[in-house]
C-alpha cells in the first residue's frame, strides 16, 4: 500500500501567527536552534497498490480545490512508500 502525501503551507508572504508563537515558545524551553518557524498541514492519503498517474492528477486537483486555499496556501503532492 502506498501513501500519497499532500503538504500544505501558507505562502511565504502570508503572516503565520501560529508559527511565530511556536518560534517564540522554543527559546523559553531552552531550544535555541530556530531562526523562524512556519506551521502547515499534512494530509496522508492511502491508496491500493502503486498510485497511478491518473490518481496523482486527481489528488493534485483535490489539493487545488479542497485541501488548500490557493489564495493563501501552496501545496506539494508526493508519494511515500
Amino acid at each position, binding site marked *: 500500500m502506498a501513501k500519497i502525501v499532500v503538504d500544505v503551507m501558507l505562502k511565504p508572504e502570508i503572516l503565520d*501567527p501560529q508559527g511565530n*508563537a511556536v518560534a517564540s515558545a522554543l527559546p523559553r524551553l531552552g531550544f535555541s536552534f530556530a531562526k523562524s518557524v512556519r506551521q502547515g498541514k499534512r494530509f496522508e492519503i492511502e491508496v491500493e497498490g502503486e498510485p497511478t498517474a491518473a490518481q496523482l492528477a486527481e489528488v493534485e486537483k483535490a489539493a487545488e480545490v*479542497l485541501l488548500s*486555499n490557493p*489564495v*493563501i496556501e501552496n501545496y506539494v503532492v508526493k508519494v511515500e512508500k
Partner: protein
Amino acid sequence: MRVGVITFPGTLDDRDAARAVVAGGSEAVSLWHADTDLKNVDAVILPGGFSYGDYLRCGAISRFAPVMQLVIEAAGKGMPVLGICNGFQVLCESHLLPGALTRNSDLHFLCRDQEIEIVNNTTPWTSSYKADEKIVIPLKNGEGSFQCDDTTLAELEGEGRIIARYVGQNPNGSRNLIAGITNARGNVVGLMPHPEHAINELTGPSAQGLGFFTSILNAMVK
C-alpha cells in the same frame, strides 16, 4: 421581502440573524445547508458560527454544501448576499469574494464591542448608513484577519470595494484595517463583525447594526 438565512451544521448566529431580518422589516426564511431550492428568497444571509466545526479551514467545507451551489449561481445573477463572520469566510472560500480570513495576528479569539466605519454605503446591505458613519457592533472570531495579495488590495481600494474598516487599533492584523468588502458588482458583501447582535440596546452594545437589515429592504423596494 423574503431574506433567507442559511443554517449549516455548526452555525450559531442564524436565530439572531433571522431576528434582525424581521426587525429590519423583512420576512426571514430558514434555509438548510442541504436544501436544493432557495424558496423564492430575494436575498440571502450566511450567518456566523463554526460551520462543519471549522475543519480543514473555516468555510472550506460549507462551500460545497448543496445550498451554496444555488447561492453562488444566484449571486452571479445579482442576488444580494451578506456573509457575516463565518459567512464571510464561506464567501471567500467560494470565491464570491477575493482574499481569505486567517488567524488573528495575536492568536486570541476576540470577543468585544468594536467601532467600525462604513466606508461604502452604496451596497444593498449598507445604504441605510451615512457615508463614513461610525458604528459599534460586536466582533467575535478567531480567524478574522483579512489577507490578500497586493494586486487584489489595490483593486479593492481603487474600486471602493472596502465597505467597512476597523476604527483605532487593528484588532486582528487585517490588511488596511478591512472589516468588510464587496464584490465587483456590489451585491455580495462579507463582514467580520456582527451587526445582527446589535439591533437592540437591551441585548447589544447599540442598535447600530440594524442598518444592514433595513438597507436590504430599501434595496429590494427600489
